């Protein structure tokens, strides 16, 4: 038995490949080469390889738990003094994150089988999910910055393809474009940082980089810019201000992909940031930037979420908000707390996303003001929502409650202002979730909710499984090694969290909920509502700033090309043609003129020759 365990550890590099193998396995169905039995076999094959990845990860985890961390290095490129490795580290933390990724991916895929039952391109969807999962598994296991970047970029690509899954719809097209370009901006900045680090430090493995950064000799400019570049990539991935817009738009994609995107994909971005934390925190500027974008994302995201009427969008903004909190924790060098929050958030957010997806599936509506009364007939969905909401907020003693308590303890001591950000975010999220719950599940059933049945078992099963998981999250957190133990929290911290959550719960429960209120006729209130509903008009700001700038530059380049460069070329051509045409007229055809010209030329030449004094 131990041999098997060791073998699984030695071959841990296979784990990301399972997902990519899923892509290849789905290809015959996705490309339409096999049509006989519909696209289902591709889905089953993908489920199988995901399960394989999960089991492989679990077996390795057993060995690692006993024998400690195991590192794997495979040379990828070694030429001209440049060495790039595939480096994996199997640590309890990495493998735990892997279990989270593959586990949620498996549940999401089962859910997708139910959700996308009649989807024509099911095989393509599963191929993309396999790609997604492979890239994420690689990111969490990676122990080299280069490899992390490599896989993060693949994640960007797969996000683009997944968001653009229903590519015939105009909103999907812009959403996919924005998702790709926003992430790409972050990625190019990240690449600048990575290339610089690679040139300066040589090695790209994190352990070597930690040694390098401890006694680096960078100038003040470089030691500020490099950390900022390293922040930019994860900020794009985690949908942080000012690169948050894509996550909201990405909700146009299929819901099962949204489950993963809002939970584990953003977690991957944060994990990369965690791994480069020692490099980022050499710069005080970078630390402040992390705190500022974290705070803006947390508060702004929570506020904007409050004004959304789309069931998925109201959820996606809270992702931005919670990842903002993670950024704050990372800036304060609190990796274990950040991890706890990531875990609790990922699980409960996935559950909330599943529940929202179920609501959409059974009512065909995403507008919460059109729904109501669903609690009567949908026990699994309703329970999932309640448990997910409880797990994500500091109200009941589930995952995030303890995370918030522990964070508040530390923050009250070190940075009281940031503690306020945490409490406010908690309060606003509770308010938002209670508001949504009342709209969707309570009250009189509206037109679209009247005949809604509970979801089919393929969707219910993963949802119930995840509900149980979220319920036991505190025990999971208790067992995790690097954590101080959630019981270490002080009563004062818990009281603050409870107070903020409870107050917001009251506000959310007592707030009047008329449809007319969703866009008030009172001008001041409406202005505020619109401001939040349209995300502080960020997309408009983009359009008049960066988009306009690039468009203007492109137009200028084109003008320069057409008028100046090509104009000069064509002008030169015209000039020579015109000269030729003009000279043509000088040809008279009279032979006397030709002879005269020749004679004059010969005389002139002879004269010149003598005048200069050379010998003929």
């Amino acid at each position, binding site marked *: 038995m131990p041999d098997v365990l060791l073998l699984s550890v030695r071959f841990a590099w296979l784990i990301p490949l399972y997902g990519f193998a899923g892509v290849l396995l789905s290809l015959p169905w996705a*490309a339409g080469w096999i049509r006989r039995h519909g696209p289902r076999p591709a889905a089953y094959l993908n489920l199988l390889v995901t399960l394989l990845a999960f089991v492989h990860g679990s077996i390795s985890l057993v060995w690692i738990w006993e024998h400690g961390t195991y590192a794997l290095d495979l040379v*990828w490129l070694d030429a001209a003094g440049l060495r790039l490795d595939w480096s994996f580290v199997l640590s309890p933390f990495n493998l735990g994150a892997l279990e989270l990724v593959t586990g949620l991916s498996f549940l999401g895929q089962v859910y997708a089988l139910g959700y996308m039952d009649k989807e024509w391109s099911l095989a393509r969807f599963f191929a993309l999910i396999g790609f997604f999962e492979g890239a994420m598994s690689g990111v969490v296991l990676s122990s080299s910055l280069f490899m992390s970047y490599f896989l993060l970029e693949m994640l960007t690509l797969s996000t683009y393809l997944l968001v653009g899954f229903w590519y015939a719809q105009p909103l999907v097209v812009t959403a996919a474009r924005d998702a790709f370009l926003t992430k790409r901006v972050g990625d*190019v900045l990240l690449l600048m940082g990575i*290339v610089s680090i*690679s040139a300066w430090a040589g090695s790209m493995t994190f352990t070597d980089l930690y040694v390098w950064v401890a006694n680096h000799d960078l100038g003040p400019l470089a030691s500020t810019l490099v950390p900022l570049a390293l922040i930019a990539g994860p900020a794009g991935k985690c949908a942080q201000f000012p690169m948050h817009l894509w996550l909201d738009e990405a909700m146009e994609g299929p819901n099962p992909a949204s489950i993963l995107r809002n939970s584990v994909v953003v977690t991957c971005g944060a994990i990369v940031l965690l791994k480069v934390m020692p490099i980022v925190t050499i710069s005080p500027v970078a630390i402040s930037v992390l705190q500022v974008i974290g705070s803006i994302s947390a508060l702004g995201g929570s506020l904007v979420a409050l004004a959304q009427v789309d069931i998925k969008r109201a959820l996606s903004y809270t992702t931005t908000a919670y990842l903002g909190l993670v950024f704050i924790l990372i800036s304060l060098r609190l990796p274990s707390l950040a991890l706890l929050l990531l875990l609790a958030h990922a699980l409960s957010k996935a559950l909330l996303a599943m529940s929202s997806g179920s609501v959409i599936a059974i009512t065909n509506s995403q507008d919460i003001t059109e729904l109501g009364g669903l609690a009567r007939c949908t026990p699994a969905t309703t329970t999932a929502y309640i448990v997910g909401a409880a797990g994500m907020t500091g109200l009941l003693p589930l995952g995030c409650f303890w995370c918030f308590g522990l964070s508040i303890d530390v923050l009250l001591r070190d940075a009281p202002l940031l503690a306020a950000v945490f409490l406010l975010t908690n309060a606003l999220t509770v308010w938002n979730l209670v508001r949504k719950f009342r709209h969707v599940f309570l009250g009189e059933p509206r037109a679209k909710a009247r005949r809604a049945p509970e979801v089919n078992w393929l969707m219910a099963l993963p949802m119930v499984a995840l509900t149980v998981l979220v319920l036991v999250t505190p025990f999971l957190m208790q067992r995790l090694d690097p954590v101080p133990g959630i019981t270490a929290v002080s009563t004062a911290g818990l009281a603050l969290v409870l107070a903020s959550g409870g107050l917001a719960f009251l506000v959310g429960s007592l707030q009047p909920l008329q449809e007319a209120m969703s866009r008030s006729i009172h001008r001041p209130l409406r202005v505020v509502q619109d401001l939040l509903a349209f995300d502080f008009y960020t997309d408009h700001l983009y359009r008049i700033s960066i988009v306009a700038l690039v468009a203007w530059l492109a137009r200028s380049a084109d003008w320069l090309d057409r008028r100046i460069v090509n104009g000069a*070329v064509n002008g030169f051509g015209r000039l020579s043609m015109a000269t030729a045409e003009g000279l043509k007229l000088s040809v008279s055809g009279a032979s006397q003129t030709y002879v005269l010209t020749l004679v004059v030329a010969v005389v002139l030449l002879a004269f010149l020759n003598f005048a200069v004094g050379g010998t003929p």
Partner: protein
Amino acid sequence: MSLPMLSILLLISFAGALALILWPGVPCPETSKRFSLVTLAAQLLWSCALLIPFDGHLAGMQLQEQASWLGSLGLDYRLGLDGLALSLVLINGILSLVAAAVSSTGTPRPRLYFALLLIISAAVNGAFLAENTLLFFLFYELELIPLWLLIAIWGGRNRAYAATKFLIFTAVSGVLILVAFLGLALASGDLDFSILPDQARQLGLGTQLALMAALVVGFGIKIPLFPFHSWLPDAHTEASTPISVLLAGVLLKLGTYGLLRFCLGLFPDAWALMSPYLAGWAAVSVLFGSLAAIAQTDMKRMVAYSSVGHMGYVLLATAAATPVSLLGALFQMIAHGLISGLMFLLVGVVYSATGTRDLTVLRGLMNPQRGLPLTGSLMVLAVMASAGIPGMAGFVAEFMIFRGSLLTFPLATLLSMVGSGLTAVYFLLLVNRVFFGRLAVTPVRPDSPTHNVLLPAVPLIHQLPAMALALVVFVVGLWPQGLADLAVGSTTALSTLPQQMALAGRPGEAAG
């Protein structure tokens, strides 16, 4: 090794072309195509056979062949192979075969067409293998005329303008290169046209700079670099698909090859002196190409301008001239050859299916039943490869170039990386407009319903060349070690040229 492997390589296609021209009677178009396919396949196989005796970690020329030809002129028939040349010979082999495979047999005068194709392929190989600058020049010019004919005879509506423009630009490029080569020989006093870096060292720096400037501009036209690029978009738009593939994939590489082999290889001192300006020029070229590409509305023009941008990276890497950056330059040549070749193939499919390449008109071609789903998927792949997504050839190349050039030219490198980000912008515009959305191939008007467009399905066999190219893009991107092992010896040798010569001592000083 007594077998003249390199001469045989050249002979295959030249003899093939000759045989096709002298073919008794009038061969039917299919025969011409099949014959040239066989010839080019043989050429590709033979190119691969070169891998067997070749050792990529050696620095100098291998498999050398020599025969005196016009000794009094200094024109010797000397061929040699190093990693740089071999990689480019391989990509030439692949893309020539692809170009022949996607050529239509319905074209007028198929015999001439395929014969010219074979001549180009052989001439390009000759230029890569030539170890004598005059011989290089002969092959460089030899490739020009067939290509001019291919554009002028089989081109699009505006072909006369484009072909003439191409001819004039490239002829000027040839003249400048010849002037530099002759000037080098005359100024240094010995009529030796072998590629010897010592030769230029005997001259004053001013002469070196002047000669190198002529070379750089000559090759800069071919690459092309801003502002000498204006022939390229026109040539591409008017050329037929296979010619575009060859032009972008192989012929532009003659320019970048010249940059490495002759500008850097013959004038290392002058090159080092000018390198900061060259790096700046590279950044301008990258940014200009990328920005101009955003504004294009013709798919082919967009890809053409992207070539201007992506070839700028090669100049940047060559200016930095570190071992990593030069290896990256080679990777970029290969990657760009494969990726832009793939893109032109796919644009060709779109054009033949819809009759237009207009970005303002085409919509939603990804439609699974009535559109071109496989072409669309391959295009997404090509676009991502070009934008530098890891796992495909473009990323390795860009990473090595940026990594190798950053410490030497930080600002130019960072600006070029911005260009890499802009690549995503314009190619995403292309994919989003042409392949995503609701299917339409004519301008959408309220009175013309567009939902009943039905594009002819492309048979899988016609997509085979594109799929093969995509596969190679993945192979290079996932297993770069293979290509690196081929080329690392020669690129490292090029990057350490100044040090090598410093060790060898300066002949001019030794004499004095």
